[in-house]
């Protein structure tokens, strides 16, 4: 079937709730209203108000509650309405969800999913536009997943719900509805921790994910570049092998991400390339990223994130030397 990313989220939730009655969906406005982006539309009607629950406005309780429910044996899928509202619950991720397995030597675990739309570009208010996957990727024990296509959204969310560990599932809201593509009907699982090679090429490796995939592909097309484009898909644990193998082949690399540059995911990718493929590099790895500033309010947010000309500029810089 043809679906958008937000429809693919809905499809995965339907499928997993049908398959496993331990799956419980909750968050602010997810039930009666079907979520502010309609990602949880129709779930209340189909699965009832015990499994689809509107919670109070309490991010700490939503994430901590998911961890507790998961420890007890359920499979909670909690929604944080906008990624900018996750920081209050950061404590629950760092202190509890990500450490329960480690803390109890495997006696308990927190197989839960926290879903949230992230990123700039939809003209939202302050705190609605951040891309802080670097911060969340820094938390040991937490998996961080960011899809970029409708099919991957369904497959990765399905895998996240089935995953034995806590997964932060970051949905690129800028492309929630702008991409419509084929999504497999029925069961569809995409393994967490594996990057996808979106395009094979010889001259340069370009690594991106989530909302940065469309401008990256556009830049490669625009510049008519023989690039190998890698969609990272999982921030943590990161698929180092796919990146390293590609860089060994192309000798050049560009990392594109929307989040701030300093201590961003790009820094880690550069470090891993240095560790495992330094002698293959023909030029320094380029980073095309958001700036080390807050995401501007809506009137200037278009300046913030990497557009195709900036991505292309980075690719050409990697190719020039």
């Amino acid at each position, binding site marked *: 079937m043809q679906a958008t990313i937000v429809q693919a989220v809905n499809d995965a939730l339907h499928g997993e709730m049908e398959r496993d009655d331990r799956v419980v969906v909750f968050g*602010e*406005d997810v039930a*009666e*209203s*079907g979520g*502010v982006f309609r990602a949880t539309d129709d779930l209340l009607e189909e699965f009832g108000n015990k499994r689809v629950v*509107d919670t*109070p*406005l*309490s*991010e*700490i*309780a939503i994430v901590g509650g998911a961890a507790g429910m998961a420890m007890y044996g359920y499979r909670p899928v909690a929604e944080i309405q906008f990624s*900018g*509202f996750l920081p*209050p619950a950061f404590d629950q991720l760092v202190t509890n969800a990500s450490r329960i397995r480690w803390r109890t030597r495997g006696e308990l675990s927190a197989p839960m999913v926290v879903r949230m739309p992230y990123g700039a570009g939809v*003209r*939202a*208010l*302050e*705190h*609605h536009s951040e891309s802080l996957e670097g911060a969340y990727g820094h938390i040991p024990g937490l998996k961080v997943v960011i899809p970029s296509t409708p099919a991957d959204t369904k497959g990765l969310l399905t895998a996240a719900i089935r995953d034995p560990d806590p997964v932060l599932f970051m949905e690129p809201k800028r492309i929630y509805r702008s991409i419509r593509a084929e999504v497999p009907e029925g069961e569809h699982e995409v393994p967490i921790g594996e990057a996808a090679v979106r395009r094979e090429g010889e001259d340069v490796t370009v690594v991106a994910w989530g909302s940065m995939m469309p401008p990256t592909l556009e830049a490669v097309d625009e510049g008519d570049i023989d690039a190998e484009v890698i969609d990272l898909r999982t921030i943590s644990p990161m698929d180092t092998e796919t990146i390293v193998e590609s860089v060994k082949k192309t000798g050049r690399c560009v990392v594109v991400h929307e989040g701030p*540059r*300093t201590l961003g995911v790009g820094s880690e990718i550069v470090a891993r390339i240095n560790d495992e493929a330094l002698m293959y590099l023909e030029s320094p790895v380029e980073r095309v990223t958001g*700036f*080390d*500033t*807050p995401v*501007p*309010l*809506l*009137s*200037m*947010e*278009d*300046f*913030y994130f990497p*557009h*195709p*000309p*900036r991505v*292309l*500029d980075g690719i050409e810089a990697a190719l020039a030397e």
Partner: protein
Amino acid sequence: MSDRASDIRVSPATGDDGGGEVRYLSQADLEVPTHQIVAPDGSYDDEAIPDLDDEELLDLYRWMVTDRVFSRRMVNIQRRGELGTFGSTRGQEASIIGSAFTLTPDDWLYVGRAWTPMFMRGASMEDMILFWRGIEEGQEAFAKVNAQIAISIGSHLPLVSGIAWGMHLDDADAIATAYLGDGATSTGAAHEGINLASSVGLPALFYCQNNQYAISMPYEKQSGANTIAQKALAYGIDAIRVDGQDVLAVYDAVSSAREKVLQGEPVFVESVTYRLDAHTTSDDPTRYRADEEVDHWESHDPIERYREFLKSEGLWAEIDHDAIVDEIETEFDEALAAANAMEERAVAEMFEYVYDELPPELVRQLDEFEDLLERRPEMYDFIEQRPKG
């Protein structure tokens, strides 16, 4: 053992140890009155009218109409694509104006859903339009009148307690006020902020507009507590529950609260009101609330209720409602024109104010970006500055 620990064994109030019987403290035992001066039918008790002169009574009306007209115009220009997301305050005029009317310019004000109090303090409609267009200068203007808008729900309560703490240290003759919604009372930050104010004894006023919905969530589901006001008791501070559709009752309640707060006794006020419009222009309330309910509240309009009072007091003759509306419309038109005339801003503004002094790495990022914009003018194909929304 501390005194407090030894006190735990007996009730501090009665010294009664309960005689071995388990006894519950229950909300059902607590009477929570709702302060009201003008009844929905317009009747009122002369004795209860707050001490305001005629001009002030008329000002309350003018500001409420300002609030209503401003919301209507903002929703309209948002629909024309000239504004970002906007949250209307229609229906909450009495709650907003009655409370803000009690504050002085030295009082700090941190609002959730309440814009007109900014105008009452000297910010302009242009500033507010800029803010909702996502232009940072709006916030700058609010800061100049000791006011801010909190977007992250509940996050401002600890901040307000901190401001109040500074006032406390300074022996300032002013208070810090947090406006919040019913939803915010579920956030962790709200609990911690109120508790801090209580434990230190800070001049903080927590003014909760219970407008019945946090987006789609009705108050009955937001909390198991019968009222929000009574939650204050758990923090050890006093509370008032007031009819938020009765501007005089709100003024009376918050005036009283402010006096107490000035003495370093934080107060929590629950103003019971109703959000007639959607949560924001991105929201569709028909998905979660019944028409009959909205109709009921439409027919209990706070401005109309106050109008009945003004008529009874013989003050209505001094009001030319249409002229007031015309004046506000003109002010809005001029503000919109001024906002539209705002010049295109430089990209450096994105970097300014992140720190007091721009660190070298940010200087580098800005230089690189400015260079890129010059080298690749095609960047502007992807950039819309949107000063008009």
